[in-house]
């Protein structure tokens, strides 16, 4: 029995949890998958490693949506997941005392869409971690990747690999990877002329098939009815029109201003490897610079866009 399962069993019993949301081994190599534990004995199947990319905070609002209850829910969280849980509490989506936050040290997670792009159609049957390398093998091939090549973009510049708020923490806190400046990609992108930037967004969002996996994987997208799902009135067209696709992505990015925790769940969920992170990251920086706010760090600070301070920067107001 691992330290993780042993401690979680104890927490499950001590805290009288009704349900615990964690990860188990998935059906494909390098894929962890969310699981819902209903008893302490069931905890044996829990895992946590770099294959556990999903943001489980998403399921807390799901649970709340389907039934109003006071069930006690435990949740295993990486740094970004924990920040999402905190932000959701700040946004009053559920009661803090009904949630037991169990932090685990995160060394970065593998983005399935990057893995898919690297491997193309080669399927791996086995893998192992060797320091900063990931060695994958399958029928007639073996390949070694630098871990950074496969990690989610957010992980590469992540400053918070451990939960900033938690009830329990299992293991030794992880060091941030920080192999890359957080806003390096944005700086690079902003140097381009407007035409080129527009072209990039057209190309990326043009690929969108509106499966809404990005929205549905996002813990902060919990609106009871998303504006794209409204039929009376219908706000945007549902066809292949580029401007409709763009409106969806732009509005989603705006709705996440000061709320996004950069967990990368949206990018990992996209079946077509669309760069859905760039716009959100740009807005995150805007909020950080203007309002000195980072989402999901503590339960007390009110959300950036729900407050007004006299010293808020406002030079952008004409």
């Amino acid at each position, binding site marked *: 029995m691992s330290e993780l399962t042993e401690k979680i069993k104890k927490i499950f019993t001590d805290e009288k949890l009704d349900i615990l949301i964690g990860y188990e081994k*998935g059906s494909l190599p390098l894929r*962890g*998958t969310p699981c819902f534990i209903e008893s302490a004995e069931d905890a044996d199947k829990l895992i946590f490693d770099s294959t556990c990319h999903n943001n489980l905070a998403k399921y807390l609002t799901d649970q709340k949506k*389907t039934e109003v209850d006071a069930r006690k829910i435990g949740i295993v969280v990486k740094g970004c997941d924990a920040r999402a849980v905190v932000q959701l509490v700040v946004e009053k989506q559920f009661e803090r005392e009904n949630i037991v936050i169990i932090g685990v040290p995160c060394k970065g997670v593998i983005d399935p869409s990057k893995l898919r792009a690297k491997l193309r*159609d080669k399927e791996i049957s086995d893998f192992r971690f060797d320091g900063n390398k990931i060695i994958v093998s399958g029928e007639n091939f073996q390949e070694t990747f630098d871990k950074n090549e496969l990690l989610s973009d957010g992980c590469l510049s992540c400053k918070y690999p451990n939960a900033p708020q938690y009830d329990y923490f299992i293991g030794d806190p992880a060091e941030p990877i920080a192999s890359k400046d957080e806003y390096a990609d944005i700086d690079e992108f902003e140097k381009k002329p407007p035409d080129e930037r527009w072209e990039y967004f057209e190309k990326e969002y043009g*690929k969108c098939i509106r499966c809404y996996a990005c929205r549905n*994987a996002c813990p902060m997208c919990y609106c009871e009815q998303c504006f794209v799902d409204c039929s009376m009135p219908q706000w945007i067209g549902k066809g292949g029109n580029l401007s409709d696709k763009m409106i969806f992505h732009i509005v989603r990015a705006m709705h996440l201003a000061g709320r996004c925790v950069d967990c990368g769940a949206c990018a990992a*969920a996209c079946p077509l490897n669309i760069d859905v992170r760039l716009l959100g990251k740009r807005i995150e920086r805007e909020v950080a610079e203007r309002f000195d706010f980072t989402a999901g760090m503590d339960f007390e600070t009110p959300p950036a866009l729900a407050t007004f301070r006299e010293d808020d920067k406002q030079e952008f107001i004409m």
Partner: protein
Amino acid sequence: MSVYRIKKDDLSLFLEKLREDFAVYAPVESDGITSFAELEPGQEPAFGILKTQKPPKEVFYPQNEIMFRFNEEGMTPELYDGKPIALFGVRPCDAKGFNIIERVFIDPKYEDPYWSARRKGSLVFALACNEPLLSCFCNWFGGGPFDKTGSDVLVIDTGEDYLFEPTNEGAEKLLSNIGGFEKAEKADIEKAGKLRKKAESSMGEPPKLDSVKETLDNSWNSPLWDRISAKCLGCAVCTFSCPTCYCFDIQDETRRDKGTRVRLWDTCQFPLFTKEGSGHNPRKSQTSRLRQRFMHKFSYMVETLNEFGCVGCGRCVTLCPVNLDVRDFLEKIAAEKDK
């Protein structure tokens, strides 16, 4: 039907000739996405790809299709009138999928003109899978890596050559008209047989699914649905990537005094799919929506088409953001009977 052989190097010549009378679609990789697209002159297909991210169903049944245009003066119908379509290099699972979808769009009473305009006169060249992937499970539903269902020609990669095995006289005639083939020799056929055996045995024994429909029909209120759907995000990745999902919505897209009526893919996984004009939604929960998807494929389609509505391509397995694996579900259902 005879089997024909062509050197791999000569395939591009064959495709060039095929392009004279057909719009030739093949797997391509463009901007990081693998899908089926019309080949440009001289463009090399990406045959190494087994599972394109986007399914080839979109060639016959595009995600967004204009049905007609309208303005103050009236309507102008729009229907595909390009060259007949030849799909080269689809995999046997996808080829079988066309047959299943077709029974929805062309049934004894009704024929869908939009599907038919692209599908009629088309040719499907399926490329046999010498090395099925871990996420492939075509053999669960009577398919196989060398299965010919839904194909006009089965193409087998034997290393230096391709073998072409037509399944009907029309296709055989077309091959002889285009030319450039030799008759396959006994050694070629034996080689193909070995490849087939190897591919088939690599997939392992499929579970017995005979009882699945009956078990499902008796499980409408089972707590199993809650457990299975708990991690489902309710996105459309599985349905949009599925070779046999066909549901669509119809929308008018207008701008000032003109517009188009568009048919577009819809999905039972979205709440809006069943939301009624009154505001009531009979499938309010994701549990009920996931149940619909699985019941449709593994019970209702068995009832209406006498076969499962799944061809085991495994796209939903590899692309699902939370790794909700339909095989786990089927194995659980199949095991229910033994309880």
